[in-house]
């Protein structure tokens, strides 16, 4: 029988297959390897360097030797040896060094299949790693880059490509982030109870930023980068498995699943965006919708109420279960936006509430809400405010005003495709 893993198991004559296998192993194991190394060295920055060294060593050796039976154990042992070498050079003959040497010896005696980490600690260690990567002392960009690299196992090249920045920029961000963390004396820990909600908020925020960059790219030619959104979903699944009693970990996951369910219908055959109203709902991914329901149910079963992600997930759920725009429960959506306004007041939420009001009670009522937002001067630079006003004015037959709004919206849009779409609307 044909072995489907053949192309990924190393063949000495095919270095690119090995490179791909190394990258795949790294995606699977990097978080646990770096978390383990941070635990044993007590130094996140050093652990990350050691892990990267081990990765390079794998790229050198695996084309000759093949992918080892337990790649994670191989990589971890190489990294630990490097740590010992580094400390010897610095003449740091401390207890930690002896401990590491002992661990290497033990791991070579242990069964080949034994994982190179402590099974009772590894989950918490991965969680600690996520909290470090998303630490509030870091800039938004640094948190995103560090999370994708150390938790997601992406290379700097892949992160650069996903965010349309040069690889060197990503590398600089990571180097600087590690210095900032060291400078601030950030510890490898799950935050204490009283800080947990705030710190978890930062982790969830980073995952949602990554998702949104894939969901509606903020710049560039492509409307969506779904691979980035799918990686954000994977990381949200990791987090919700590690912190099952936190409702918002499930709420965020549910929101992402419901939103991503629409991806197959969001772009037409020409690569043009298709808005919710025009989407062929038969193309929605029903597996994702089901997983969204499950995640939201888990959020509710914690008995701690819905947070901002849970409420947004519930809104996305209303769309997911509706057969058409017309049969959507807009009254319920308006209520949910009101709840969201209470949890996290923002003009963007108000804007969305107005759009729901338009569907529930007609364009005139919604326009009143939007006029309030516009008069307040908030969202002056947000293209969706004039875009939404344009839609409502057009529905009310106020065509000249509608065109003005679409023109203004097009001038504010940063995504090329979205701008084109708005320009089309402005011209009729």
């Amino acid at each position, binding site marked *: *029988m044909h*072995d*489907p*893993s053949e*192309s*990924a*198991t190393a063949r000495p004559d095919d270095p690119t297959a090995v490179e*791909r*296998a190394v*990258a*795949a*192993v790294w*995606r*699977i194991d990097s978080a646990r390897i770096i978390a383990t190394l941070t635990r044993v060295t007590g130094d996140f920055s050093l652990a990350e360097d050691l892990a990267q060294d081990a990765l390079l060593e794998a790229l050198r050796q695996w084309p000759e030797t093949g*992918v080892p039976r337990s*790649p994670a154990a191989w990589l971890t042992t190489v990294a630990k040896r490097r740590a010992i070498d580094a400390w010897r050079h610095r003449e740091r003959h401390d207890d930690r060094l002896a401990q590491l040497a002992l661990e290497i010896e033990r791991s070579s005696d242990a069964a080949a299949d034994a994982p190179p980490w402590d099974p009772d600690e590894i*989950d918490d260690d*991965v969680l600690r790693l996520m909290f470090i990567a998303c630490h509030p002392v870091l800039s938004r960009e640094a948190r995103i880059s560090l999370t994708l690299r150390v938790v997601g196992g992406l290379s700097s090249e892949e992160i650069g490509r996903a965010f349309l920045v040069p690889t060197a920029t990503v590398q600089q961000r990571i180097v600087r982030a590690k210095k900032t963390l060291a400078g601030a004396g950030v510890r490898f820990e799950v935050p204490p109870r009283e800080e947990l909600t705030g710190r978890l908020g930062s982790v969830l925020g980073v995952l949602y930023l990554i998702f949104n960059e894939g969901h509606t790219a903020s710049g560039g030619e492509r409307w969506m980068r779904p*691979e980035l959104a*799918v*990686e954000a*979903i*994977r*990381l*949200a*699944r*990791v987090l919700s*498995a*590690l912190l099952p009693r936190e409702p918002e970990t499930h709420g965020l996951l549910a929101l992402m699943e419901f939103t991503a369910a629409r991806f*197959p*219908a969001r772009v*037409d*055959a020409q690569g043009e965006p*298709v808005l919710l*109203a*025009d989407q*062929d709902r038969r*193309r*929605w*991914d029903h*597996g994702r919708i089901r*997983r969204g329901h499950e995640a939201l149910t888990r959020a509710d079963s914690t008995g701690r109420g819905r947070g901002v992600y849970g409420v947004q997930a519930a809104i996305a759920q209303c769309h997911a279960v509706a057969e058409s725009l017309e049969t959507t429960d807009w009254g319920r959506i308006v209520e949910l936006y009101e709840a969201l306004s209470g949890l996290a007041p923002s003009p963007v939420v108000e804007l969305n509430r107005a759009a729901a009001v338009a569907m529930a009670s007609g364009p005139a009522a919604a326009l009143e809400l939007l006029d309030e937002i516009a008069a307040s001067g908030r969202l002056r630079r947000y293209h969706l405010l004039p875009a939404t006003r344009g839609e409502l004015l*057009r*529905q009310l*037959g106020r065509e000249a005003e509608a065109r003005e709004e679409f023109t203004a919206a097009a001038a504010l849009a940063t995504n090329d495709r979205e701008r084109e779409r708005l320009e089309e609307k402005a011209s009729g």
Partner: protein
Amino acid sequence: MKYMLIMRVTDEALAASQEIPFEQVIEAMGQYNESMMKAGVLLAGEGLADASEGFVVDFSSEEALVTDGPYGETKELFNGFWIIEVSSREEAAQWARRAPLGTGSFLEVRRVTEAEDFPADNEWIEKEAGWREELAQRSQG
């Protein structure tokens, strides 16, 4: 992308596995499933009951014919599956390699088709154009 890891075992392997303590098999499988769940890749997975409980529906004649299992000539029995969501074919292969299966077992790894595999056809585009028109008219009126 999604892949299905399809477990196939020979009769001999199945017989041999029955000599390994059940607890041990369950534990190894449990750990494997948990590792995929905690890595955020596992979407679904099921094991199948003994083939003797199953049956075969044969479409080779005009009328579909139902016959009792086990499957006469099949050498490798379909024994269970996982569906995982990963970033590449190689990642699927690396997960497959880690399955706690013994000699005589095989994993067939197949990509699961998604909506993107079925591009909007002409009929669909026409239909959509019709909707757009209808919606435009509705909002004008």
